[in-house]
């Protein structure tokens, strides 16, 4: 955070992230000790530090608690339909290639109903940054079982405990072809901010999973205390293993969580491949869509 921003913050007695937030809507709707606000803070800090043109940043969220992120960020923000944040973001990116498009949404939204879009965007190495906030449950609708809910965890639709095998999200992303895959928890604020900053500089499908507490549903239904209890759990049980094989990243119920950066490769992104392919095949006849996009101005 720059000194100038901080001085201004002290003078106005306003939080230094305020320029990136829709302050007229703060305090936000998230529960006390929910981790989503922390992820938004880390994202806002990373954006500011990275020096990108904030006018060219777009945020797309789906439906759910994490889906409300778009509503609080002072960027071009889109609150799309359930599970369709990734294809919506694809449309934004392909319609105006100079945009930095970020998808911030939840586990149920992005890999439940949105699972198909997730794997295809990773396969294509579509140029979007995806921050998935994983609270292991469908929070906003009252605590239903999610594709990430660990075995034996209780939820409102699996009241006797979950018996379905959950996804290991970094494994899903990496095996679908994502070139940048990382997992952090809400406690790892500095590493998470650094990971987002790093991902902003990369191209292609960057995927960061953030484990977040859900005090009102997941923690309550499973008697794990408040969000602070969850953060204490992350403190004692999160292990950093950069480069770990993504096959070993399963999360059991209230068990060890392996965090770190697992995949960081150079791979041509969708737009780069499209460009170079058409150039090769069509030569001079190829007219690329400019960075300003497909709009025909008067």
């Amino acid at each position, binding site marked *: 955070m720059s000194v100038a921003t901080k001085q201004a913050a002290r003078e106005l007695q306003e939080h230094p992230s305020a320029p990136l937030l829709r302050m007229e809507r703060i305090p936000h709707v998230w529960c006390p000790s929910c981790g989503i606000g922390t992820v938004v803070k880390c994202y806002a800090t990373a954006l500011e530090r990275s020096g990108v043109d904030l006018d060219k940043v777009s945020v797309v969220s789906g439906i759910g608690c994490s889906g409300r992120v778009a509503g609080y960020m002072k960027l071009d*923000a889109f*609150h799309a339909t359930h599970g*369709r944040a990734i294809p919506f973001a*694809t*449309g934004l990116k*392909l*319609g105006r290639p100079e945009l930095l498009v970020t998808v911030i949404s939840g586990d149920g939204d992005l890999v439940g109903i949105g699972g198909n879009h997730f794997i295809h965007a990773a396969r294509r190495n579509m140029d979007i940054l995806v921050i998935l906030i994983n609270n292991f449950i469908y929070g906003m609708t009252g605590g239903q079982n999610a594709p990430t809910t660990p075995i034996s965890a209780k939820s409102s639709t699996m009241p006797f405990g979950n018996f379905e095998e959950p996804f290991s999200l970094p494994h899903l992303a990496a095996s679908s072809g994502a070139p940048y895959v990382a997992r952090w928890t809400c406690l790892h604020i500095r590493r998470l901010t650094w990971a987002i900053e790093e991902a902003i500089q990369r191209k292609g499908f960057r995927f960061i999973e953030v484990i977040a507490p859900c005090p009102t549903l997941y923690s309550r239904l499973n008697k794990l205390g408040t969000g602070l209890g969850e953060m204490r759990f992350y403190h004692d049980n999160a292990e950093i293993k950069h480069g770990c094989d993504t096959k070993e990243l399963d999360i059991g119920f209230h068990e060890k969580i392996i965090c770190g950066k697992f995949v960081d490769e150079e791979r041509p992104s969708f737009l780069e491949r499209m460009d170079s392919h058409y150039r090769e095949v069509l030569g001079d006849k190829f007219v690329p*869509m400019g960075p300003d*996009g*497909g709009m025909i101005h008067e």
Partner: protein
Amino acid sequence: MKADPAGVLTGAHFLDGDFACGEGAMAAGCRFVAGYPITPSTEVVERISRRFPTMGGTFIQMEDELASMAAVVGGSWTGSKTMTVTSGPGFSLMMENIGLAAMMETPCVVVNVQRGGPSTGLPTMVGQADVMQARWGSHGDYEVIAMSPQSPQEAFDLTIDAFNLAERYRVPVMFMMDECVGHMTEKVVIPEADEIEVVPRQLTKKSPEEYFPYDLNGGQLPEFARAGDGYRFHTTGLTHDEKGYPVMSVECQEACVRRLVEKIRDNADDIVRFEEEGIDGADVVVVAYGITARVARMAIEVARNEGIKVGFMRLIVLWPFPEKRIRELAGKVKAFVVPEINYGQMVLEVERCAAGKAAAWLVPHGGGNVHDPETIVETIMKAAK
């Protein structure tokens, strides 16, 4: 504004309806298309995928129709004109995001080359059974515009009109072709680019500080801002206020939704389009659209030779429905005869507007083929009695 010459394939061509529709989109300035293959619509995007890289357009085949429609809505927010193409089963899948486009007031065009339904139905054969779905397909209250071409030439011309209407009213436009027109090859004349009038994306002139995404400024339509121009707006599928923020109140719902419906209903006179022939003094008026209109003309000729005074009304814009005209005609004629390749969809609208003053006779057809003109003649005879 005149069309961008890069997208206009001027000349006289021998094209099928699908290809002509694709050419119409390119002439209208569409430069982003996301689609998913489905018979009988695939040729539209096949043509576009071949031509787009030579004119600065991007085509992507998405993983399913839901993704296609979501990408079309997202792409439109960059200021690009966007389109997707599909048929019955894909149309059903796209409905949620069509609702999103309607709620967010995103201009875009959805082409449905109708086939026999329901469900997988008759993939390679004609139907016209999606016309009600075009109007009511997504949940909630909203209004869209739907058009129906009867020839490959119209598939070209009306696609350009569809894009223009989408821009003018900030609404998704359903382009309801049918498989017969889509797969029929005829002469299509594409004029010079400077003879084609296109409505460009209207951007707000306000500064980012003054701009709200759904501010009406005393009018009926909000002003558009592109993502990436520094306006930092928020838009959502939730019921929202003029700032684009979700507000869960009865007043906001009333304000938000009533306007979505009224912006089309209040301007119906400017949007409605139909063609009439021989209406004056007619006892029976045949109302038809799409490929059925061409079959109906033959039936009308036969009926006229039998001495029946038959008029013809061809619907070009299906929604909003030409209520005024039908109400007017209902007082003057004995009956309407509505042949359509379904078991009764637009006939319901005709009957509703006729309000008992004239009868409404349906000539149904399950799909797979066009009507046998004899069946239409029979019904005209019955209606004339």
